């Protein structure tokens, strides 16, 4: 029987990680709040992992009353406010406590927390327009390791749908063969360099004409620098908002294929695209007329306003 939970208990900290993750995924990938909340998720998971061994390990060692607080023991010191160790120190503690948590993971957590500190303690905007491919796969990798370590899972932290996406990102991160794409890009670059300036100019113009936003996301080709197209698949739910002109729907897309008309470079698969520096998710925006979006049949509404049908007179 316990009336309340210890605020440094694994249960309390993991519950907060769940809530923060929920808020994180309420924002789209390119929104700065998506990144900021992800850093809060990492912090709570790191703390939950340390607490899973013992809440005492969370205590700031400068004052032993913090140890008493971790043990839920009464504290006689006046005006005492419990203080836990800094997140940077706790990340190091996790490195010693969790088997699968390596120096690489520790470095990622420390750099992500540094972004958070920069966000909340300065006027800079470290999460604004931060490409997801540079951090999101690592974020998922670390959350999986930490969740496993405390007997939880990506599903219990993020929900089944996001966990599925997370596992795909983790697989892509682990895919060492994806780096072979860099060789393919280098070959295309060489061939492109062999073409005459006139041929290059003609191909560049052709690529700009053919690569329309309507068909995908326009990016610069990593081999020739011409305009090329990324095509992706929807990740998560589309967010709709009402504007003066109707409904604007924004959908986060995760890149799946790349094609450059100018140098004929083609890349298939997220892991290869990520290795090629083309892995950032993008937003696909669609505008709808309100009547079209809500599938409103005006004629039917007009008919409903008439008197009942009667073919007797």
């Amino acid at each position, binding site marked *: 029987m316990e*009336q309340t*939970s210890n605020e440094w208990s694994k249960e*309390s900290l993991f*519950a907060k990680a769940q809530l923060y993750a929920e808020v994180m995924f309420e924002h789209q990938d390119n929104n700065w709040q998506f990144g900021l909340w992800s850093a809060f998720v990492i912090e709570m998971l790191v703390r939950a992992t340390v607490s899973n061994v013992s809440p005492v390990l969370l205590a700031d060692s400068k004052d032993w009353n913090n140890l008493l607080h971790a043990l839920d023991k009464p504290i006689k010191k006046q005006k005492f406010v419990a203080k836990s160790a800094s997140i940077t120190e706790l990340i190091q503690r996790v490195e010693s406590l969790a088997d699968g948590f390596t120096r690489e993971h520790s470095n990622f957590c420390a750099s992500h927390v540094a972004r958070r500190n920069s966000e909340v303690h300065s006027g800079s905007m470290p999460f604004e327009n931060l490409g997801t491919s540079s951090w999101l796969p690592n974020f998922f990798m670390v959350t999986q390791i930490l969740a496993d370590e405390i007997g939880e*899972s990506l599903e219990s932290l993020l929900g089944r749908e996001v966990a599925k996406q997370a596992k795909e990102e983790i697989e892509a991160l682990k895919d060492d063969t994806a780096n072979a794409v860099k060789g393919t890009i280098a070959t295309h670059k060489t061939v492109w360099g062999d073409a005459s300036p006139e041929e290059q100019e003609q191909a560049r113009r052709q690529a700009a004409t053919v690569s329309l936003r309507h068909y995908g996301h326009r990016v610069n080709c990593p081999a020739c620098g011409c305009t090329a197209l990324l095509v992706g698949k929807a990740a998560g739910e589309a967010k709709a908002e009402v504007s003066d002109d109707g409904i604007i729907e924004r959908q986060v897309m995760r890149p799946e294929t790349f094609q450059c008309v100018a140098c004929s470079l083609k890349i298939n698969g997220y892991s290869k695209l990520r290795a090629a520096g083309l892995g950032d998710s993008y937003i696909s925006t669609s505008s709808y007329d309100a009547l079209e979006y809500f599938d409103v049949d005006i004629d039917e509404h007009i008919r409903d306003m008439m008197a009942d049908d009667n073919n007797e007179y």
Partner: protein
Amino acid sequence: MSNFFNELAEDGFVIFDGQSFGDSTIEIATNVGTVMNVPGAKTVQELTPSNKGSLEASSYSGIYGVEEFPFHSDMAHWFRPPRYLLLCCKVPAISVETRVVKSERIFESEETHDLRRALFRPRRRLNGRLSHLRLFEGDFYRWDSLFIQPINELASSLRSRVIDRLTVVSYEAVVLSNCHQCLLIDNWQTFHSRTAVTAEGMNRKIERVYLAEVKG
């Protein structure tokens, strides 16, 4: 005795003659299991019907009076509620039922991970703190439609589904019709409710003791 424990494990409650275990409620409770002292309450609590308004709105009697109490688990707003509650009849009222339902049945169609992600909290701070609560904590279930509140959207929709299911669920109805008759309820595996108290049931008197474990 094995029947006693089998019934308790299988149904989540057991009815028995208290006199086989002792004369007073505390003696019965001590012989059945390990008695718990609940902060701010007597070890043996006397339960009698009260009209709404005569008690504070922080108790079911203060809120519902003699009307029906909805299904709940006792102290659901605590981080870990007491495991068992023992009800000993002192003055019977045959018109009043205690209804018991196995909690597992209410959640069997829920997706495990969503159940874990649906977070609640006590409606008021307890010892100055608010704890995160889940309706299924891995080793026990909790429910209270008033004293715990949803924190997130998953919890709000789960709350609505639980309320809907509890209004149509089939339950076991127990009437404590004899003095010394006892009802031991597993507060972690069942939810219980009380029917409305009619005029002739106003003398009903039950004594309640919380137990941390039963002696197996």
